[in-house]
């Protein structure tokens, strides 16, 4: 693969995440998009093409099934708009598609917008309902999303001496970070005891080890680096992007070679992204990381899969508070999915907005000092799809 054109993010926008009863799907699209357009100091009509990421229209408000659900609320017509769906990596995949269009010269200004509206239904009516009532009647029937990751936790505890406390401390850390983020769903810090004593969801993961379903939207506007207007823009550059589908929906649970100790998809996506960005020693070369902590165990697994530590040593990072704000490699200073919540299609883009804010020095109370390079990570399905994006200022 030859040298690729550098891409710059020139506009970012993110809504408040939470139970947004007062905002519709369309309101969320407008909220995030108009913030990003204003930040980029362009007009909506400068956008040449757009990508809309919504993972679950059917268990939300039946919006986001096609690109037109971005066009309509913004009155943004007569340009190509594509809906992207790749489970929890949908947002990152929207960004990937926008970048590729810029590189291919299809357009000069591209928008990637992620939005999810799940809270118009009761929590048990959305993703749990999907797992209970839809899909294959027998294969994996009995799992909720929590369970598909809890089996990793049990295996990790058996193999690597990880403890329940280590897992729950991820939640404590991220809820503390979330208390500093005014756009997070949950802004209340919690104690280790509270996490461990909260309602059990799938052993050993409790409610506070699990992210909530959430409403929210996030948006980025990108151009080729050569088109950045230095007087107007405060750009952040995309230095690496990897996306990998490394197993399927059912296969991990029926594949005798799957060890439930790592996500091949994350390892592969990271390898691609690191190569593009020229990173060889991630823990030394990255200043902050946003990982997909849909359940607290996933953050620990991801430390290892991203190469922040060796396999089996993630417990040392959390025990040494190395991933806390002020530590060697702050992880999820936004509060992560555990605090911010998880509007599935929006999460990947929300992470890119978060890291961009740090690289611009605009992250306020939770600013990582002298942040020069950051990483975002998503994992979708039962660890099947992963994306890794490297950003620099």
């Amino acid at each position, binding site marked *: 693969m030859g040298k690729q054109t550098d891409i710059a993010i020139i506009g970012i926008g993110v809504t408040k995440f939470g139970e947004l009863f007062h905002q519709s799907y369309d309101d969320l699209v407008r909220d995030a998009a108009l913030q990003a357009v204003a930040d980029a100091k362009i007009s909506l009509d400068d956008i040449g093409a757009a990508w809309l990421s919504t993972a679950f229209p059917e268990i939300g408000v039946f919006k986001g099934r096609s690109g037109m659900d971005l066009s309509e609320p913004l009155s943004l017509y007569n340009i190509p708009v594509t809906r992207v769906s790749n489970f929890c990596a949908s947002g990152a995949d929207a960004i990937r598609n926008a970048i590729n269009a810029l590189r291919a010269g299809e357009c000069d200004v591209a928008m990637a917008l992620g939005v999810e509206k799940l809270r118009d239904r009761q929590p048990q009516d959305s993703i*749990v309902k999907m797992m209970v009532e839809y899909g294959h*009647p027998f294969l994996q029937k*009995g799992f909720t999303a929590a369970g598909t990751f809890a089996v990793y936790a049990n295996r990790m505890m058996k193999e690597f001496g990880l403890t329940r406390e280590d897992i729950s401390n991820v939640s404590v850390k991220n809820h503390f970070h979330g208390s500093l983020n005014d756009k997070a769903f949950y802004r209340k810090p919690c104690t280790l005891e509270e996490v461990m004593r909260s309602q059990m969801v799938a052993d050993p993961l409790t409610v506070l080890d699990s992210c909530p379903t959430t409403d929210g939207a996030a948006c980025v506007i990108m151009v080729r680096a050569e088109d950045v207007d230095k007087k107007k823009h405060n750009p952040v550059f995309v230095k690496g992007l990897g996306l990998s589908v490394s197993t399927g929906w059912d*296969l991990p649970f029926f594949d*005798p070679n799957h060890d439930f100790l790592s996500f091949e998809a994350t390892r592969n996506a990271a390898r691609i992204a690191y190569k593009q960005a020229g990173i060889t020693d991630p823990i030394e070369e990255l200043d902050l990381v946003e990982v997909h902590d849909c359940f607290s165990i996933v953050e620990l697994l991801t430390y290892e899969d991203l190469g922040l530590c060796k396999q089996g040593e993630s417990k040392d990072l959390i025990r040494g508070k190395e991933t806390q704000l002020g530590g060697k490699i702050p992880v999820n200073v936004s509060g992560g999915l555990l605090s911010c919540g998880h509007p599935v299609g929006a999460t990947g883009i929300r992470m890119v907005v978060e890291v961009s804010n740090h690289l611009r020095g605009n992250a306020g109370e939770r600013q990582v000092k002298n942040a020069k390079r950051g990483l975002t990570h998503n994992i979708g399905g039962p660890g099947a799809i992963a994306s890794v994006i490297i950003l620099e200022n």
Partner: protein
Amino acid sequence: MSYIKSYGIALPHFRVEDSTLHPSGKKGVMKAVCFADEDIITLAFEASCNINKEGVDGIFFATSSSVFNNRYHASFLADLLNLSQGILALDFTNSARSGTDALLLANDLIGSGKYKNILVVSADVNFPEIGKERSTPFGHAACAILLCKEKGIAEITSSGSYSSSLAEEFSYKSNTIQNDPRYSRDAGFKNNITTSIKRIVSKPDSFDAIILNSLYARMAGGIFAKAGYTETQFAKDSLTSKIGNTGSTHALLLLIHELENGKKSILLADYTNGTNLFEIKTFTFPENKCLQEQLSKYDLINCYQDYLLLRKAGNFGSFTYTTKEMFSSEMMQEREKDTLQYLKGLKCDMCGTIYYLKAARCKKCKCETFSTVQLSKTGSVYAFTAEHYFPSSFPPITMVIVDLDGGGRMTVQQTDTLLPEKYKMEIGVNVKLVLRKMIENDAKPNYFWKAKQNG
């Protein structure tokens, strides 16, 4: 006539004591009761699955507690068991005598030479009205007997049936009718059994076990004495106090019980609104006494509340989410039958990895050719979790990832989880796969494998 080649038994794992059902009930008197995901189909499958199915050209299904209307239990079971397509499959329903009805016809058909191997399966899962558990006989069990032309463990040397129009207790358009007991028992039971013995049975003194299966068995002593039998010939029904009265299965279980007890010459009489009689000679005694084994392995249900949950009489939702019917399709189950029902896996021709699911290429070595292999139904737990938010009568549902003995991996629910403390799930624990209902609301048949700890 015909021979009993082999047999299989399925008793549910749990028993409820009479003292649990009612404060004045007796301790030690028990009934076998199904777990929430068991029914006549799963019990019948379990009883039949270890019987050699080669050459089976007929299957008879007997029950007094049908789950289907306008659908044959026998052909449904034949399909689950992977018997040849299109074989004779008949149902015998509607009566506690239907177990021996099936045996009677199977014996005659084999005797006629038209059929060679007929699998007779009886399963009954009756529950009495709530509150009437003490006065209503019930108990859950299944029994499968393979009858064949060639010599087996025992021979049915003669058989016959003597019908009667009088019934003591029956139902008419779902109303229960009880005739005057004095009249119906004298003119019905006593008259019928006396006449049938006289007409059908040859030499009273040649039997070392006489089995009389009837709710009125206790009044039969005088009748048999008059016909020239002695009290020592009687085989007492010791099963009712251990597993209850198992309806259409009971007579067959009593027969198996006497075979396992080593009786050489058996007279089996089964009375319900008419009598079926069989004379049976034993040749070899069964090596694997599976009835005795299953009678000794059980766990007691601790309280009436759990019994209600087992029969799905309580709220069987988990938290606020109650069981709803899931998506299912007959087409899907039919086309994926080899995998879903028959556990056929694919073995990579190059690296030997065994997959449960179909694929174009081996995930490990990318080889494109596979051979079909039969997966085993035993294995050990690789990983697990307990799901507290998935609907179930007994939450949490434990999901277990099982490495099957001989290769292949499956992920299934754990079953028989009434006593989670006694059978604690752990990595490395041995389990076996059993066929159970996936969703317990009984809206549709949906049978699939679950893992059971080898208790």
